[in-house]
C-alpha cells in the first residue's frame, strides 16, 4: 500500500484533469504548482490518468480533495485513506457550523470520520464531539452537505460535471457561510435533523446488513457503507433498490436523500447489480465477479433470466463447483444438498442429476474459475442484463421494453420485434405515461422519427426513462476524447446519472492495487476446503496493474479467461483513445473484399490504423454509429432557422431548485400572457449529452452587441457560434475530438413533474432581471422575461463572492416547452450550456414497435422499423408570445443557458444572440431563484440578489419578482 506517493499522484492526476483550475480563485500554492507542473503534458496525463484511488471517486470528490491537501491537519494518507481524504474538503470552515455538519454530514464525510476517528465509525451523531476538533476539515463539508440539502436535486448533477464547476461550487459553499442572507433558512433546517435511522439492506447472498445512517443521509452514503461492508471496490455496477409506494422496485438515487425517496419509514433496501457488465471477464476483482454471480444465480433461479435446460444445468454445475469445490463421489447423497439450492424456476430431479453430472467434469476448477465460467455462459444469454418494462405499443398491444447495455429492445411475448441501439436514439423523453424515443434518421431519411410507447402510468414511464438515462450514460458514454475533455451526461432535469460510466469504472478498476480480498462464499462455511483461487488470480492481476498497461486488454491476455477477449460482442474501447471511436465504425469491413459494398470512405483509415482485429471488433459495439456522421437535423434547424424574436419564448418562472416541479409549470401558465395549451405544448426537461472542454478558448471579438458581456462568456459564445455554423454540414463535435466544443447528440428530456403537491414545502423568491440589450426597445419586449448578467461567467473580472455563491449547475430547468437543449458548449468553470431554441419544433410522433407492421405500411424511403405519423407535437412559437415587441424577426444566432446554483439560489442565465438587420444583438437574461425550506426572509434575499446582480451589471434592470410558496403534501417527490 502506498502512501505519500499515492496521494501525490492523485493530486497530480486531479490537477491534470482540470488544467483550467489555474484560474481558481482560492489557490493553494502547492496545488497550483502541481497544476503548473502537469499542465499540458498530455502524454503524462495519459499515463497518470487513473492512477490513484481518486479515480474511483466521482469527480466532485476529487475536487474537494485538492483542497484537503491544503489542510494542515491532514496526514499522509494510505491509499484507502487518501480516497477518503479527498472527500474532505477543507475550506474556510466556520466553527459555528459544526453541528450543522453533524446534522447533514454527507456520506463522504461519514467515511472520513470513520477513517479518522475509528471510535465513531457509524453514526455521525456520535462523532459530534470529535468533529469539533476537526472543524477545519469538516465544516466545509458540512456546509456542502447543507447545500446539498438545500439544493437537493441539483447537487448530484454536478458530480457529473466538470471539476471546475465543482470548484466553483465549493467556493460558493465556502463563502456561503459568510453570506448572511442565505444562512438562516438553511440553518434552521439543518439543526432540526440529526436523527439516526436503521437501514436494512438485503445483500446478494441473502444475508441482511444493518447499519445506521443519519436521517438525512443521501443514497450514496448508504451505498458506500454497504460496499465497504462487502469490501467491494468496483462499485459502479451495483446499486441499492427499494420498494416504492406501489411496490415497485426502484433504484435509490445516490444523490438524493434516502428519506425523500423511500416509502415512509421503510428503511429496507436490497443490494443489486444495476449495470450488468457485458463482459464480466473484464472486471478486475474476483469479488466483483462473485457478487455478479450471486445476482445472476438469483436471476436465473427466479426465471428473470430465462435459459434452457442445458444452460440451467451448466450454470448450476459451476455454482456447485464454486461453492463446494470438486465433486466428491464419497459425499453422501449429493442430491440432498443440491435440492436445497435453487437453480431454476422449475427445478426437476432430472436437472439436478444433470447438474451433478456436469459438476463432475469441473474437477480442479477453483471457485474463481468456476465463477468466471458461469459468467462466460450467462453473459451470452439473450436476456442477460436486460431490464424489462411492461408497455403497450401504439395499438395497445402488450409489449415489453428492455433496456440494456446496447440500447432499447422491444419484445412481444418472447420475440424481439424491434431494437433501438443507443447510437440510433437521439432523444429519450416521457410525458405522462407516454415514453418516447426520437430516432436518428436512416441514410435515406430526412427527419427524425419518434416512437412512442404507453406505460402503465406516469411513474412507470418515469422509471423507464431514468433507467434509460442511466444505462445510456453508463454504457454509451465512453471515455472522452481528449482525456481532459470528458463527456458527461448533463440534464436539465433533476435527475441524471450520477456515477461513473463503464469506461471510467473500468479504468478505475485497473488502478485497484490491493491483494485480492478474501471473501466468503455463501456456503464456503459449510465446506472446509480452501479452494479459493483468488491468490493465484490476484497475482496475475497485480502484475498487470503494475505494468501500468491499459487495463482490460492486457489483463486478459494472461489471465485464464482469454476467450472472452475474442468475443466480438463486447467491446473494450480503450478509454483514453479518441481515434478509436472513429475507427471502429467500420469494423465489419475487415472481411475485406466481401464487404466492399458497405465501404465508407473512412474505411481505408480504419484499416490503416487497425490495431488488432479482435480489439477493433470488440470496440465496435460501443462505437458511434457506423454511418457517416449524421447531422443532427435539429442542429441545422437551430442555426438556419430564422427566429422571429431574439429569444424563443422563455417562461418566466424558474423551477424550484427541486427541479421538475409542476409548480413551476403552473406558474408558467399564470405568468405567461399566452395560456399554454397543455395538449400541444410539451414541457420537458432536457438532458443534453455534451462534451466538456477545459481548454481555454481564445476570446472572440465579434459579439458586437454584447457590451456587458465578459470575456469568458464571449468565449463561450464564440464556441457556440462556431459549432452552430459548422453543424449545418456536420455534427462534427461527435467526430472531432479536438474541438473544444461539442454538440449534444442525445437528449433525454424528462417530463416535468405533474403534481404540484409533490413539491416539498418551499418558498421561492424569483427575481427576474433584465440586463443590457443593444436596443432599448428590446427591453420592452422582455417584460416577461427575466434577464441578466453574464455574472455567471467564470473568471469574469467582476466575479467575486456573489458569483461564488452560486456554483454553476447544468441547465437545470428548461422550461420552455419543447426547448431542445441541443448543443452544449462548455468551457471551464461554470457550467455553460447552450440551448438552442428554435421557434418552432415539429416532431412527428410515430409509434411502431413491430417491424412487420412497419413493413406492411411500407414507406419507401424509410428503413423498416420506421415511421408512420400519428400525432404531432407542436411547440409554440415565441413570436406569438412576444407580441409586445416590435416583432421584427431577427435571426437567432446562438442561445445558451447557464445555470448555476448554490445552497438556496438557482441562477439560470440565458444568453441569446440574434442577428437583426445586420446588427448583432446579445441579450443576457438571468433568472435567480431563491429557495428555502423554511422561513426565508425573501425580501432580504431578494434585495441581496438584486444588489449582487447590479454590482455585476449596472445597466441591468429588474423586470419581475415572483414569490411562490409551495406546501408539502406528499412525501413522494418522484
Amino acid at each position, binding site marked *: 500500500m502506498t502512501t505519500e506517493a499515492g496521494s501525490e499522484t492523485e493530486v497530480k492526476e486531479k490537477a491534470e484533469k482540470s488544467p483550467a483550475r489555474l484560474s481558481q480563485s482560492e489557490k493553494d500554492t502547492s496545488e497550483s504548482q502541481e497544476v503548473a507542473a502537469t499542465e499540458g503534458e498530455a502524454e503524462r496525463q495519459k499515463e497518470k490518468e487513473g492512477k490513484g484511488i481518486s479515480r474511483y471517486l466521482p469527480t466532485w470528490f476529487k475536487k474537494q480533495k485538492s483542497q484537503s491537501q491544503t489542510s494542515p491537519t491532514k496526514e499522509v494518507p494510505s491509499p484507502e485513506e487518501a480516497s477518503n481524504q479527498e472527500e474532505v474538503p477543507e475550506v474556510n470552515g466556520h466553527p459555528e457550523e459544526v453541528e450543522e455538519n453533524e446534522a447533514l454530514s454527507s456520506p463522504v464525510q461519514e467515511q472520513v470520520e470513520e477513517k479518522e476517528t475509528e471510535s465513531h465509525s457509524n453514526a455521525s451523531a456520535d462523532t459530534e464531539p470529535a468533529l469539533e476538533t476537526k472543524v477545519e476539515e469538516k465544516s466545509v463539508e458540512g456546509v456542502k452537505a447543507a447545500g446539498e440539502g438545500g439544493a437537493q436535486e441539483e447537487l448530484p448533477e454536478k458530480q457529473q460535471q466538470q471539476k471546475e464547476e465543482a470548484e466553483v461550487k465549493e467556493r460558493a459553499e465556502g463563502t456561503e457561510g459568510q453570506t448572511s442572507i442565505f444562512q438562516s433558512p438553511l440553518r434552521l433546517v439543518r439543526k432540526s435533523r440529526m436523527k439516526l435511522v436503521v437501514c436494512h439492506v438485503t445483500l446478494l447472498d441473502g444475508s441482511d446488513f444493518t447499519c445506521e445512517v443519519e436521517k438525512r443521509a443521501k443514497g450514496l452514503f448508504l451505498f458506500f457503507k454497504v460496499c465497504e461492508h462487502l469490501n467491494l471496490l468496483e462499485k459502479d455496477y451495483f446499486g441499492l433498490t427499494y420498494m416504492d409506494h406501489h411496490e415497485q422496485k426502484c433504484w435509490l438515487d445516490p444523490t438524493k436523500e434516502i428519506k425523500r425517496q423511500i416509502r415512509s419509514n421503510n428503511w429496507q433496501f436490497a443490494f443489486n447489480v444495476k449495470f450488468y457488465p457485458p463482459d464480466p471477464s473484464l472486471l478486475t476483482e474476483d469479488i466483483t465477479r462473485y457478487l455478479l454471480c450471486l445476482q445472476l444465480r438469483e436471476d436465473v433461479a427466479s426465471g428473470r433470466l*430465462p*435459459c*434452457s*435446460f*442445458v*444452460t440451467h444445468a*451448466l450454470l448450476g454445475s459451476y455454482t456447485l463447483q464454486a461453492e463446494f469445490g470438486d465433486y466428491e463421489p464419497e459425499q453422501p447423497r449429493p442430491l440432498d444438498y443440491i435440492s436445497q439450492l435453487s437453480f431454476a424456476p422449475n427445478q426437476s430431479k432430472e436437472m439436478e442429476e*444433470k447438474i451433478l*453430472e*456436469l459438476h463432475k*467434469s469441473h474437477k480442479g476448477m477453483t471457485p474463481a474459475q468456476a465463477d468466471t*465460467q458461469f459468467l*462466460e*455462459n450467462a453473459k*451470452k*444469454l*439473450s*436476456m442477460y442484463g436486460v431490464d424489462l418494462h411492461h408497455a403497450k405499443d401504439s395499438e395497445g398491444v402488450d409489449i415489453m421494453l428492455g433496456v*440494456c447495455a*446496447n440500447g432499447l429492445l422491444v419484445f*412481444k*411475448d*418472447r*420475440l*424481439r*420485434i*424491434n*431494437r433501438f*441501439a443507443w447510437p440510433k436514439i437521439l432523444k429519450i423523453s416521457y410525458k405522462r405515461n407516454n415514453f418516447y424515443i426520437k430516432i436518428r434518421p436512416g441514410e435515406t431519411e430526412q427527419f427524425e422519427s419518434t416512437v412512442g410507447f404507453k406505460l402503465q402510468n406516469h411513474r412507470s414511464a418515469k422509471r423507464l426513462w431514468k433507467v434509460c438515462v442511466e444505462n445510456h450514460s453508463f454504457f454509451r458514454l465512453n471515455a472522452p476524447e481528449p482525456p481532459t475533455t470528458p463527456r458527461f451526461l448533463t440534464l436539465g432535469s433533476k435527475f441524471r446519472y450520477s456515477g461513473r460510466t463503464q469506461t471510467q469504472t473500468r479504468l478505475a478498476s485497473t488502478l485497484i492495487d490491493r491483494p485480492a480480498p478474501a471473501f466468503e462464499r455463501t456456503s464456503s462455511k459449510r465446506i472446509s476446503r480452501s479452494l479459493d483461487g483468488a491468490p493465484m488470480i490476484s497475482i496475475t492481476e497485480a502484475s498487470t496493474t503494475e505494468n501500468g498497461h491499459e487495463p482490460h486488454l492486457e489483463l486478459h491476455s494472461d489471465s485464464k479467461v482469454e476467450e472472452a477477449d475474442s468475443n*466480438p*460482442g463486447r467491446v473494450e474501447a480503450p478509454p483514453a483513445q479518441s481515434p478509436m471511436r472513429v475507427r471502429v465504425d467500420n*469494423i*465489419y469491413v*475487415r*472481411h475485406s*473484399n*466481401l*464487404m466492399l*459494398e*458497405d465501404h465508407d470512405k473512412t474505411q481505408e483509415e480504419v484499416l490503416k490504423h487497425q490495431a488488432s482485429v479482435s480489439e477493433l*471488433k470488440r470496440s*465496435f*459495439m460501443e462505437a458511434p454509429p457506423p454511418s457517416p456522421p449524421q447531422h443532427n437535423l435539429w442542429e441545422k434547424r437551430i442555426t438556419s432557422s430564422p427566429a422571429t424574436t431574439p429569444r424563443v419564448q422563455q417562461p418566466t418562472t424558474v423551477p424550484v431548485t427541486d427541479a421538475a416541479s409542476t409548480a413551476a409549470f403552473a406558474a408558467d401558465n399564470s405568468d405567461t400572457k399566452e395560456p399554454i395549451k397543455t395538449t400541444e405544448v410539451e414541457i420537458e426537461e432536457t438532458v443534453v449529452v455534451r462534451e466538456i472542454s477545459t481548454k481555454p478558448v481564445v476570446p472572440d471579438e465579434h459579439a458586437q452587441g454584447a457590451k456587458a458581456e465578459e470575456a469568458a462568456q464571449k468565449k463561450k459564445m464564440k464556441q457556440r457560434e462556431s459549432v452552430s455554423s459548422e453543424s449545418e454540414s456536420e455534427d462534427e463535435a461527435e467526430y472531432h475530438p479536438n474541438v473544444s466544443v461539442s454538440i449534444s447528440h442525445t437528449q433525454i428530456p424528462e417530463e416535468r413533474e405533474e403534481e404540484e403537491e409533490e413539491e416539498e414545502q418551499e418558498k421561492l423568491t424569483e427575481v427576474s432581471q433584465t440586463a443590457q440589450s443593444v436596443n432599448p426597445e428590446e427591453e420592452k419586449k422582455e417584460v416577461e422575461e427575466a434577464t441578466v448578467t453574464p455574472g455567471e461567467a467564470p473568471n469574469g473580472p467582476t466575479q467575486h463572492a456573489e458569483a461564488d455563491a452560486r456554483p454553476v449547475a447544468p441547465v437545470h430547468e428548461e422550461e420552455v416547452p419543447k426547448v431542445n437543449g441541443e448543443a452544449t458548449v462548455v468551457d471551464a468553470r461554470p457550467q455553460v450550456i447552450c440551448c438552442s431554441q428554435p421557434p418552432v419544433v415539429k416532431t412527428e410522433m410515430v409509434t411502431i414497435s413491430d*417491424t*412487420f407492421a412497419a*413493413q*406492411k405500411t411500407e414507406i419507401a424511403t424509410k*428503413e*423498416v*422499423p420506421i415511421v408512420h405519423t400519428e400525432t404531432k407535437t407542436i411547440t409554440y412559437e415565441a413570436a406569438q408570445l412576444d407580441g409586445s415587441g416590435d416583432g421584427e424577426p431577427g435571426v437567432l444566432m446562438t442561445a445558451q443557458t447557464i445555470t448555476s446554483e448554490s445552497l438556496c439560489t438557482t441562477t439560470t442565465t440565458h444568453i441569446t444572440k440574434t442577428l437583426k438587420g445586420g446588427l448583432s444583438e446579445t441579450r443576457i437574461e438571468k433568472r435567480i431563484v431563491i429557495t428555502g425550506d423554511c422561513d426565508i426572509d425573501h425580501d432580504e434575499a431578494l434585495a441581496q440578489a438584486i444588489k449582487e446582480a447590479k454590482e455585476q451589471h449596472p445597466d441591468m434592470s429588474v423586470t419581475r419578482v415572483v414569490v411562490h410558496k409551495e406546501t408539502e403534501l406528499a412525501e413522494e417527490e418522484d
Partner: protein
Amino acid sequence: MAGLMAGFGCYTHAIVREVPTSLAKEALRTSQAEVDSTKAQKEHDAYVHVLRTTLGLEIVELPVDETLPDSVFVEDAAVVCGDTALITRPGAESRRRETEAMKGALKDLNLNIVEMIDENATLDGGDVLFTGREFFVGLSKRTNQRGAEILADAFKDYAVSTVPVVEGLHLKSFCSMGGPGLIIIGSSEPAQKALKIMQQMSDHRYDKLTVPDDLAANCIYMNLPNKGQVLLHCTEEEYPESVKVYDKLKDHMLIPVSNSEKVRVDGALTCCSVLINKKSNH
C-alpha cells in the same frame, strides 16, 4: 455442450429423406415449373453422397412417403439447436404429417423433443435462420408469430427476432449462414431489406456476403473436425455470377452441389437436410 454457442457449424449427423416420385407433380410450388423426377432424384443422391462420403456425416435416412410430395424438404419439419429439437407445425396443411417420421428419428438420436402443438402456430424450418448467436424467424406465408414464439420458448438461451418475409417462400430462400457471423444474402431489394432488419435487431455484428441471385444465397455451412470450414453452395451452371462470389471465400472448402430440379419446387440446399451435432451434447 461446451457452453452456449460453441461450435457453430459442427455437425455429426444429417437427417435426409428420399425424393418421392410424387414430387414432380404434386409438390407445392410458387411457380408453374415442371420438375424432372429422375433428375431430382439424381441430384438428391449426389447431395446425400456429399454429406455422407465427402464430409463423413452420419446419415439418417427417413423412409420415402409418396403421400407426402414435399417430404424431401426435411428442414421444414424440425429445428435442431444443441440437443433440443423443435418439431414444427408446417404452414402448409399438406405437409403436417411430415413431422411424424422426423420426430421418431430425432428421438432416436436422444434429442430433447419439443413439439409445436398449438393449433394457431405454424412454422417452417426454412424460415428459421440460426446464426450461432441468435435466431431470426421469417414471418412468411408459412410461418406466423405464434410459431416464432414457440420457437423462442424452445430455445430460451437465444434471442429470437422476427423478420418479415415479403417475397420468396421462406426467409432462407434468400439468405443463409456462410460462417460464424457471416450472412450470405441475395441482392434483391426484399433480401437486402430483410438483412437490414436483421442487422438492426441484433446486438451482434454480422458480416454479409451478397450474391447476385437470391436463391444462390442459400448454402450450407459446416465446420468439421478434419475438413475445417465447408460450404456447400450452388453450381456454376445454375448461378455463374454468384459462384464467383463464393469463390472469394478463401478459407472455406467450397463444394458446389447441384440443385436445379428441386429449386423448381422452391427447395433450396438447406431444405434437404436437418443437421445435428451429437458429440457436443453432454
